[in-house]
């Protein structure tokens, strides 16, 4: 039941061209040690699904600056000028998605829903190419699920089985992306023994987690 592994063990999981979901909101709640690993491995042509592209020197931002990313699906790129520059040069594809829609699409992908209807984006360019459905006289956009090959998660307290507690605002996208990827890796700030976390505190149930690695504090 112990999923704690040395970071060497998970190296073979990463391949060029993969789709990754990465937790965090402007780097708060982003697994920096796993980002280090990706930079080390120098895997290329990644598609990254996350809230934002962070800052150039933090979290996902570092992967952008290092030229490892082919496409991002995010709600915001304004804090990382490098994302905008690469986009304008045609070197990075950027799909912008309203934040509430993005998290619902990930949740749908992780929970077997075929899509959700949201009023967000109606009457804007976000609706381009999407099916519109009228419910009780109001227009909604049909937004489709997102999934990834691997989800990279940052947990504050994680037990050896993978049960994960998130402190403060580090939670953000983390528990939702844990549902929507084929493989789930948690970077733990603190690792505790099985039984030391209350079952109510397992915001991500360990059953969703494949690997736990020890991160920095």
């Amino acid at each position, binding site marked *: 039941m112990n999923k704690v592994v040395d970071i060497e063990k998970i190296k073979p999981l990463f391949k060029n061209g993969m789709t990754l979901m990465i937790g965090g*909101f*402007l*780097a*708060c*709640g982003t697994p920096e040690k796993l980002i280090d690993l990706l930079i080390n491995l120098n895997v290329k042509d990644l598609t990254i699904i996350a*809230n*934002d592209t962070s*800052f150039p020197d933090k979290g996902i931002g570092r992967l952008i600056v290092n030229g490892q990313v082919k496409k991002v699906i*995010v*709600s*915001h*790129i*304004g*804090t990382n000028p490098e994302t*905008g520059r690469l*986009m304008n040069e045609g070197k990075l594809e*950027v799909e*912008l998605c*309203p*934040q*509430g*829609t993005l*998290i*619902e699409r990930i*949740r749908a992908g992780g929970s077997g829903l075929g899509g959700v209807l*949201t*009023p*967000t*984006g*109606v*009457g*804007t*360019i*976000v609706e381009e190419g999407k099916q519109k459905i009228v419910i009780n006289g109001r227009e909604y956009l049909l937004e489709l699920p997102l999934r990834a090959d691997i989800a990279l998660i940052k947990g*504050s307290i994680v037990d050896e089985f993978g049960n994960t507690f*998130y*402190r*403060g*605002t*580090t*939670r*953000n*996208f*983390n*528990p*939702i992306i844990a549902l929507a990827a084929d493989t789930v890796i948690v970077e733990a700030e603190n690792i505790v023994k099985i039984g030391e976390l209350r079952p109510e505190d397992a*915001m991500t149930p360990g059953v969703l987690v494949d690997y736990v690695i020890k991160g920095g504090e």
Partner: protein
Amino acid sequence: MIPNQELAKEIIAKRVAKELKDGQLVNLGIGLPTLVANYVKEGVNIIFQSENGMVGMGPAPEKGKEDKDITNAGGVPVTIMPYGAFFDSSMSFALIRGGHVDVTVLGALEVDQEGNLANWIIPGKMVPGMGGAMDLVVGAKKVIVAMQHTSKGQPKILKKCRLPLTAKGEVNMIVTELCVLEVTDKGLVLKEIYKDTTIDEIKSLTEADLIIPENVKIMDI
């Protein structure tokens, strides 16, 4: 015109603060809207939401007391009030899109007389992304645009937005350093003007048609 930028921002923030009622759940956008929190009256309890995953957001921490795990939607360390709660992004936007946020205050690049708002992209120039703005504008019960009346002397309150929209017909109120406008079915109604301006000046700095009622009040801040 109020050439002093700092004064202009203060007028706007003070006036918006007066719109907030005791017990309301409020989301303040980054930049100017954030200043609103400084002017809420003693005894009026406003609960601030931060869309990255918190209600009950408190003021900035003292220097040296920052907690890396408690940040706002700008990525900056903040604090949480004793009545606050943390949650994930899906819950945060359930609150936002579900109509649980009473008021959202946002800046704008352009706003128009139909209540349309543009604040997330200048194609080919600035593409920050919409972040949570589209959900906030669609979901909050009341949408207040808080912005300086003009940009480099050019009107930002238009007959029809030219930039890509953030949301269609969702704005309820516009507060600038010169006036307070209410968005109605018939168009923009001039409710209040700042003491050092005139209706004519406002008209000259506004592209949108304005409905001028008989009694336009002086902005009370």
